[in-house]
């Protein structure tokens, strides 16, 4: 397992390159969302999570739930690179008959929960964390959600629930890239002050630069931030991060790159050929 920040950053970019290739090949979408969470995903799968690709159902594994299910491509890439299934299968993403559907689906080794409709991941994560808490099982539950899905009432039901039951074995990460499906967060439903909201709901909060690997490693390894409270990392990210012409562009929630854009993107990600 790599441990240096440089290696983790390099892995994040190789996951980005996978996602760009996958979305290009399948003419799928949600590339901007994949790129914003790449560093978080690399940190989780190569530094934070206790998972075993040889035993995906290992009872004491950390549970990782992708609640922003549209970011599936980069999770599949991480799972393949970690050895949960052959990397060659990534070529089948979104193709007829493939188990790698556009929104993340269980049945793929290493995937705990199918998602795609927003606001589902945190409640399920609370249930897993509650079972572990009551039975004093040592694993942690990590939920990666989007900023846009904080529009969903079900998210706030779970945000109210987790501190009530002192789920300090639960980590929520918000990929706060500031752009949702049809506008910026500010334009649609402004979440600010988000840190204050979580504090008011009795969570232990840390804010990080979601592209700074040192900050990510330090935050994720410090969970729980306070005994008896759930932890939330608000990761400030850039939608489309790593490919200059995709950064902060709403359109890359939907578009798939042309051949030319693919080549440019891969060069920027250091994966050009």
């Amino acid at each position, binding site marked *: 397992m790599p441990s240096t920040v440089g290696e983790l950053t390099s892995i994040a970019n190789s996951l980005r390159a996978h996602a760009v290739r996958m979305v290009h090949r399948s003419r799928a979408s949600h590339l901007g969302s994949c790129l914003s969470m790449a560093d978080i995903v690399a940190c989780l799968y190569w530094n934070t999570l206790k998972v075993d690709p040889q035993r995906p159902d290992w009872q004491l594994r950390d*549970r990782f739930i992708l609640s922003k299910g549209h970011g599936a491509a980069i999770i599949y890439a991480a799972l393949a690179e970690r050895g949960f299934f052959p990397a060659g299968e990534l070529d089948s993403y979104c193709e007829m008959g493939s188990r790698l559907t556009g929104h993340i689906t269980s049945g793929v080794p290493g995937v705990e929960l199918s998602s795609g409709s927003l606001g589902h991941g*945190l*409640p399920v994560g609370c249930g897993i964390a509650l079972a*572990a808490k009551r039975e004093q099982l040592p694993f942690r539950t990590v939920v990666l959600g989007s900023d846009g899905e904080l529009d969903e*009432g079900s998210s706030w039901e779970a945000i109210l629930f987790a501190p009530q039951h002192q789920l300090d074995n639960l980590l929520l990460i918000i990929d706060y890239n500031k752009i949702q499906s049809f506008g910026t967060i500010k334009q649609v439903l402004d979440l600010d002050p988000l840190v204050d909201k979580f504090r008011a709901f009795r969570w232990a909060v840390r804010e990080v630069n979601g592209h700074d690997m040192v900050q990510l490693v330090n935050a994720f390894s410090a969970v729980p931030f306070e005994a008896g409270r759930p932890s939330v990392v608000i990761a400030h990210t850039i939608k489309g991060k790593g490919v200059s012409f995709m950064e902060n562009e709403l359109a890359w929630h939907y578009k798939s790159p042309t051949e030319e854009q693919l080549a440019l993107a891969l060069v920027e990600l250091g994966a050009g050929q």
Partner: protein
Amino acid sequence: MRTAFLEELVKLAEQDERIWLVCGDLGFSVLEPFANRFPKRYLNAGVAEQNMTGIAAGLAMAGKIVFTYSIANFPVMRCLEQIRNDVCYHNLSVKIVAVGGGLAYGSHGYTHHGVEDIAIMSALPNMAVAAPGDPQETRSITRILASRAGPAYLRLGKAGEPMVHKGDIAVDYGKAIAIREGSDLTLISIGGMLSTTVAAADKLSNHGYSVRVLSMPFALPLDEAAILSAAAETKAVLTVEEHGYGGLGTAVGECMARSASGTLFVPLRLGRSPIKVAGSQDQLRALQGLSVEGIARSAEDAYLRCIERTERPRNNEAGTGS
């Protein structure tokens, strides 16, 4: 029914540590025996049914058998997508229990009328859908649902439903229960209409009809063999349910249409329009034709239509034809 359910659940939980009960802040004076006995396997999730159902899915993913519990539509509709995606798609052992199904909360108004639940739950993958007819069926079905892996929906009445079965019974999963044998008409009842249906059958018997009564506590899986036997062996089949379109009547009608039995089928159920007036459960049922008298009248009409139908070809043969 709710007390029978809870008593049975406590017994099951004594034997199986995987059983949890999760409520949506409802169950006062009903759930306390479970909560007091098994505090580590009891949860009040608050007035938050989406989160309640997501939590139940998470618990089930951690190996638990989870019963969610609330009133009428609350554990069904408010969290329908959580049931569909989190529970059913993952084939998790979450058993959704709705107390006060049908018009049990009659006077509380339309928000509390659980009259589309069977249709909605029957449309979901991996789902078993049960509505027991009396407290004894409730006990048996609670045992069945706890013992079978995967999602289930259990529609209960409230309290004080008459006992139709004398003593303990063992319901078979997905099977009807023969209550009365008969050869003229079949009445198939689901859920809390059972005692009324039996009373209607008795009334019809007094009028000289031979009436078969089936209790059909499972809408899914449906006992098609029992339906087809009734279609073959009696002149008309009527379903009786405290539910709107898309429930037992729809399922039985589809089954009979597929078999091309030609036997007359009449669904007795609630109308399309919401009930906007107050009334007790019995009063509102009667308003919709689901009283003893209403059912008996509909059954008698159906029988007379059968007689007319069998006589009509002879009239045509005797007449000029067309």
